[in-house]
């Protein structure tokens, strides 16, 4: 990364702070690079670690006033060792208690799962599944019925039109009525076609997604209980 790239990245990261603060910070670091000296770009970047680190420090500084937060020293061994420090509970008589309470808790959880989770959970799951499936079937059937009515509409419309046009010469009034009805039927057919397309385009996939989501939730839970 070059100095320019570093400063540009920093500027981008500071977009969400007030312009005045951003400009002041960028001005500071521009000067910082310059004062470090020619050809020391890479070393400065290494010392600053990353634009992200610098931006984070700036934003943290804006949040707190003269607060009591502490600054991590670079490579402080103290923080790294905290996890391996001996914990007081391991000394002497305290040792047994934590084991017992965790044992009881596990037993309690197992009981809960066995006596409540399974007898109630499984029927509930099955019901939910059945409902989801039937919703899908309903939507599908709705689509089918709409399709049938639509087809009927188109068919009737065409028939009316044909008959109407045929009679046009002989009986114009009646013929016109037939034609009109034909157009109405066609219009209804077209509207139903649109409805059908919506149902198939949105309704069915939505139901399908709902079922897949259900499956995922269940398998997640099952996996979690096993682990």
């Amino acid at each position, binding site marked *: 990364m070059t100095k320019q790239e570093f400063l540009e990245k920093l500027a981008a990261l500071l977009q969400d702070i007030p312009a005045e603060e951003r400009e002041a910070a960028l001005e500071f670091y521009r000067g910082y690079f*310059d*004062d470090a000296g020619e050809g020391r770009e890479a070393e400065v970047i290494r010392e600053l670690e990353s634009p992200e680190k610098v931006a984070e420090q*700036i934003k943290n500084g804006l949040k707190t006033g003269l607060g*009591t937060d*502490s600054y991590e*020293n670079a490579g*402080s061994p103290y923080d790294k060792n905290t996890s391996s420090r001996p914990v007081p509970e391991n000394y002497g008589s305290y040792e047994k208690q934590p084991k017992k309470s965790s044992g009881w808790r596990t037993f309690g959880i197992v009981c809960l799962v066995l006596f409540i989770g399974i007898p109630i959970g499984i029927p509930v799951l099955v019901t939910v599944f059945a409902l989801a499936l039937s919703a899908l079937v309903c939507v599908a059937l709705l689509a089918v019925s709409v399709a049938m009515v639509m087809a009927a509409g188109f068919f009737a419309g065409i028939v009316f039109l044909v008959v109407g046009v045929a009679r046009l010469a002989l009986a114009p009034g009646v013929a016109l009525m037939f034609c009109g009805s034909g157009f109405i039927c066609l219009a209804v057919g077209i509207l139903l076609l649109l409805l059908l397309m919506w149902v198939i385009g949105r309704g069915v996939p939505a139901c399908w997604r709902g079922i897949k989501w259900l499956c995922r939730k269940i398998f997640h839970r099952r996996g979690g209980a096993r682990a």
Partner: protein
Amino acid sequence: MVFNTGAALLDAIVLAVVSEEKEGTYGYKITQEVRAVLDVSESTLYPVLRRLLKDGCLEVYDMEYGGRNRRYYKITESGRRQLNLYITEWKEYSERITSIFTGRKKP
């Protein structure tokens, strides 16, 4: 470095470093001098300087150097008072800790 440096202590050190120069110093130099004393990350210093500036402990002025404007930080009267406060506090604090370390009965 084993002990974390609190915000107040860092402020005190920065003030002390800046106060050493009668005419003030610039950001990069301040950072290097603080780093000679404390093992803090370079990116830590700017927010401290900015805060001290906002609190009136430091003031800035620009001076030309090498064809560009260099921003210098200088300690103010109020900054000096704050620094003296910190120094007094530190003396007491460090003495208390030293006494508990050295006055300890051997096991």
